[in-house]
């Protein structure tokens, strides 16, 4: 476990030694801030409208602001994740430092866990920026805290799974760009799989839709914590890390 932590710290340092981390954070802050602004603006206009029409129903902040913002952030994540994971192993393979790691007294899973954890922590830091927006809601309104927390748990689990898949794809090539593009492709597929459920009800469509990360994120965004969805994401994390371990082992035999 100490070894995993050593590697994790090294990865985090190299994220912050290069412009990657700052660039991603800035990009995310801007885009999440924009989503938040738009959602709040719509919410304010609508609630003024509804008051003028005499409809006394107070509108729900969670439903009008939190939910759309969380849904949007989950989609933005699909773009950020490839940029976080693409270098993890591809860069080590390209620069020859893989030889250092592979001949050091650490186990493969320690190496993989350390790298994945670093990517995960960076993503948490990025996600943390959007939490500042949510805090503003508490300053000016009375949103329900629990659905927000559940929503963030969903975002974190979803990212964990996709980061694990990205880590795996990063072991397949020496080229960061290829790793990033492949990861983006997979993320996109897992996102659009859900679309078939709109027109098709056959079993294959259900399976496809079940594999989509959107299907499983939606309940989280509504504040519903379902074991089924939690297990789905945890399975994706385990699968991704398992595939990474297999790939690293195959690398040794082929190298």
């Amino acid at each position, binding site marked *: 476990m100490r070894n995993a932590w*050593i590697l994790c710290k090294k990865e985090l*340092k190299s994220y912050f030694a290069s412009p990657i981390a700052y660039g991603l954070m800035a990009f995310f802050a801007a885009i999440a801030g924009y989503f938040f602004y738009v959602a709040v603006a719509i919410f304010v206009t609508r609630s003024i409208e509804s008051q003028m029409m005499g409809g006394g129903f107070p509108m729900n902040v969670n439903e009008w602001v939190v939910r759309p913002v969380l849904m949007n952030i989950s989609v933005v994540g699909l773009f950020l994740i490839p940029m976080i994971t693409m270098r993890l192993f591809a860069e080590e393979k390209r620069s020859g430092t893989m030889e250092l790691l592979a001949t050091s007294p650490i186990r493969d899973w320690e190496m993989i866990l350390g790298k994945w954890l670093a990517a995960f922590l960076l993503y948490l830091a990025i996600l943390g920026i959007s939490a500042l927006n949510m805090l503003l809601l508490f300053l000016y309104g009375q949103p329900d805290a629990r659905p927000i927390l559940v929503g963030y748990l969903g975002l974190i689990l979803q990212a964990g799974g996709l980061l694990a898949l990205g880590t795996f794809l990063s072991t397949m090539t020496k080229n960061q760009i290829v790793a990033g593009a492949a990861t983006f492709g997979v993320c996109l597929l897992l996102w659009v799989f859900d679309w078939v459920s709109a027109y098709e009800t056959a079993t294959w469509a259900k399976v496809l839709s079940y594999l989509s990360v959107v299907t499983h994120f939606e309940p989280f965004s509504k504040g519903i914590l379902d074991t089924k969805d939690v297990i789905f994401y945890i399975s994706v994390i385990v699968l991704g890390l398992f595939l990474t371990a297999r790939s690293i082992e195959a690398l040794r035999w082929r190298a």
Partner: protein
Amino acid sequence: MIKAEGLTKYYPRTVAVDHISFEVEKGEIVGFLGPNGAGKTTTMRMLTCFMPPSEGTAKVAGYDVQEQPLEVKKRVGYLPENPPLYPEMEVLEYLEFVGRLKGVPNSKLKQRIDEVVERCALGDVLKKLNGKLSRGYQQRVGLAQALIHNPDVLILDEPTVGLDPKQINETRRLIKSLAGEHTIILSTHILPEVEQTCQKVIIINKGKLIATDTVERLTQRLRGSELLAVEVDGATSALQVQERLEKVPGVSRVTLKSTTDHRYRFEVETTKGASVRPEVARAVVEAGWNLYELHTAAMSLEEIFLQLTATDQPSATGGDR
């Protein structure tokens, strides 16, 4: 300290390393000599547990590379052909990272770093980025990295490649100073390098072991027979000169290399131990010809391989077991 038995690595359609067996005693410096593509790097990668052998076994410091790779890795320092540096790290930061990675306890880390920094003369560059260092310094950081956990065995893949002559000398001296406390295997395709730094040499070619012997005995055997380049002018025909040279006692074979305007160039092979250069010179002059050139042709590695594979193989292997 190191014992390889029938070590083999198959790649698709090729055999990179073909049933190699050798032993290295504690404290020895062993040179791994062979042309590019001979299987040196592959063998080293198997010894360092970077890749598993297809067949055969290897034991390093008493542990099997396949059964207990973690124990082997704790006791081996490895410098690959390209130093495995992270360009965005400072030298000191890098050494701390590698030290932790190799399992140096935190309490001893500082002391170990100080030691390798002094040994590899890195004091001036500790705060510089790895990526900004010159090739010579990068090689030294690579060596420091291999030494950080004070390993029993050091495996260095072409440690002097890409360095300038001064740096080559420094590196060789550094490696020599490490002998005794560490067992060292270094690979090279430069024969003089082995002569200068190593006590024992293992020669491989095309994945096969050609010879293992002490450096003195091997060079003695190779230098025993001399190869001369002779250039003669003024003779009526090449055949005439060739016949005359062949009569010189100690000459085993004469081959015509080139002819330009009645100037003939020969390669003269001599038998072991005979010093025939004066005799050859006299023979040419007495025949009334002009001697333009007479010198010993340095034997290239290729020729050494040819010679070893052609004649000496049975007696060469296992020379000092």
